[in-house]
């Protein structure tokens, strides 16, 4: 059962070949059996899941069901899920039972999905390896000595290990696309503002976006359909009509112009990754696409710009965690200042504290212009690069990461070396453009991912291009051994 894609499971549910209760029980058993070694879930919700599955089965029987009815999903643990612990992978929120439902999870529940549980993540979404979680590192199902990527590492590992049909993730600097690339999944970061951030615990408000993580582009299209749309409660939500994402999946690619940014294919790119992308380029050409060399001249400024903007916004967003209204509170605070300082020092992990401090510094008097304002100007240059590129091409193709997944522990002592692995994903967050990651090959047992980036609100086109690639290749059908 777990080998079927979400689309396949949907068909099986609608044809009554399986029930949602059976499917849910099947995933719950697999989680018990395999997740000890992977640590992809922080909280599993078996009673809730079975209750939701029974309701879904009733709707399916009554003919009152949509494509997602009865499908068991896992949610990254920064979506507020009412009545369920929502920890953000942090000691700070280990005791936080969300008092309300996020828009993303509410929409997926309304579509009839089943909640298997909340997935592990880098603490407060700050990380690229899922090694910074209070609940321990997540392991890559393809090779458990390696990271699954981050910050949506738990969602990636759970989907790749077939411990759910699909999962939600979030992407602020690549946190959907990079783990998707490391685990042979298809993951989409939509245009900024496409999906509501209401109830999504904030890291960097001008960069954060939720998105689906699944095994195929077709599956992502089904999830995006339910997740996307204007939400009054999110002041950055864009009132742009939601197209039928599945309708264009089968458009032929003849005449599609694909750009290869020369800055992304310079030295330092791992040979296996370069070869996989080159093979993908040939595949796209046989499908009728035209390949053009383009330039994103300011691409290398993206990492320093991001590591000013994101920490600055995080320092503001995480100031709400003060031990007063919810979350961790230190014992025996001597006074109010001690309450704040020790609750935060004890509740937050090292990477989170580092980023808050970098952000506080970048925004402080005397440094704001040199750092934050300068970074925002560089952000404009990066956006301009994309706008210019899209006058010449329809989509941009590049790797998701410079190498396949690295080993657990390899980069955790050197924050900067970990930051540098974000080189291919970060530009899309700064510019706000959508991007989809999909499997392009393997280096031994480790997946290699590639990315397609598009203009604003081109999600349907990106899903179409990815789907056509997946109709002619089989990387996305492979499964990790022994699971």
């Amino acid at each position: 059962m777990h080998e079927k894609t979400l689309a396949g499971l949907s068909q099986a549910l609608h044809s009554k070949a399986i029930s949602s209760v059976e499917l849910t029980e099947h995933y719950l058993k697999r989680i018990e059996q395999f997740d000890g070694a992977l640590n992809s879930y922080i909280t599993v919700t078996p009673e809730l899941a079975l209750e939701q599955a029974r309701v879904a089965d009733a709707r399916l029987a009554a003919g009152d069901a949509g494509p997602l009815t009865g499908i068991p999903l896992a949610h990254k643990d920064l979506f507020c899920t009412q009545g369920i612990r929502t920890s953000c992978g942090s000691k700070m929120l280990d005791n936080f039972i969300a008092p309300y439902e996020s828009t993303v999870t509410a929409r997926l529940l309304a579509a009839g999905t089943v909640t298997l549980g909340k997935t592990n993540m880098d603490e407060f979404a700050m990380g690229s390896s899922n090694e910074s979680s209070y609940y321990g590192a997540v392991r890559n199902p393809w090779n458990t000595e390696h990271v699954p990527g981050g910050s949506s590492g738990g969602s990636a590992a759970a989907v790749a290990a077939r411990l759910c049909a699909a999962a939600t993730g979030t992407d602020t600097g690549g946190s959907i696309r990079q783990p998707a690339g490391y685990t042979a999944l298809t993951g989409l970061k939509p245009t900024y503002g496409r999906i509501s951030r209401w109830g999504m615990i904030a890291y960097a408000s001008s960069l954060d976006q939720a998105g689906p993580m699944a095994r195929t582009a077709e599956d992502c299209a089904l999830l995006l359909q339910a997740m996307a749309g204007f939400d009054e409660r999110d002041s950055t939500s864009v009132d742009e009509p939601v197209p039928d994402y599945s309708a264009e999946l089968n458009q032929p690619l003849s005449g599609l112009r694909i750009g290869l940014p020369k800055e992304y294919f310079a030295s330092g790119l791992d040979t296996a990754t370069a070869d996989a992308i080159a093979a993908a380029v040939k595949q796209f050409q046989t499908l009728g696409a035209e390949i053009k060399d383009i330039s994103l001249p300011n691409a290398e400024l993206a990492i320093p710009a991001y590591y000013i903007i994101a920490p600055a916004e995080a320092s503001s967003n995480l100031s709400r965690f003060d031990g007063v209204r919810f979350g961790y509170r230190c014992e025996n605070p001597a006074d109010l200042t001690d309450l704040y300082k020790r609750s935060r020092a004890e509740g937050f992990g090292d990477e989170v504290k580092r980023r808050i401090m970098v952000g506080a510094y970048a925004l402080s008097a005397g440094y704001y212009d040199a750092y934050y304002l300068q970074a925002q100007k560089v952000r404009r240059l990066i956006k301009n690069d994309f706008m210019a590129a899209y006058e010449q091409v329809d989509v941009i193709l590049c790797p998701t990461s410079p190498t396949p997944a690295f080993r657990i522990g390899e980069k955790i002592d050197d924050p900067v070396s970990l930051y540098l692995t974000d080189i291919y994903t970060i530009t899309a967050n700064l510019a706000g453009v959508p991007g989809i990651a999909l499997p392009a090959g393997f280096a031994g047992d480790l997946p290699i991912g590639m990315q397609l980036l598009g203009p604003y609100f081109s999600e349907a086109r990106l899903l179409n291009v990815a789907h056509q690639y997946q109709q002619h290749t089989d990387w996305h059908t492979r499964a990790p051994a022994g699971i």
Partner: protein
Amino acid sequence: MALDRSDVEQIAHLARIALHGDDITATTDKLAGIMGLIDQLQAVDTSGVEPLAHPLETTQRLRTDAVTEINQRDALQAIAPATEQGLYLVPRVIE
């Protein structure tokens, strides 16, 4: 921008994060590394470039000034560390 110990102490205070002794040294080293990465931006000529705060440059939406939320104080305070009569309790502030 070279960061020294007193800078880090000041930053930790601004961020309301307790930082002591050996931690200050370790933190200073790691932060200095990060600032080294970030300082690359200083060399970029951005004269005449407008800052970009929001990718799509949308403006803040306004709405009618009408009450739309309901009182959920009890539910929201159920998860608070310490409350009394609808107020959040903290250590004494005013002597």
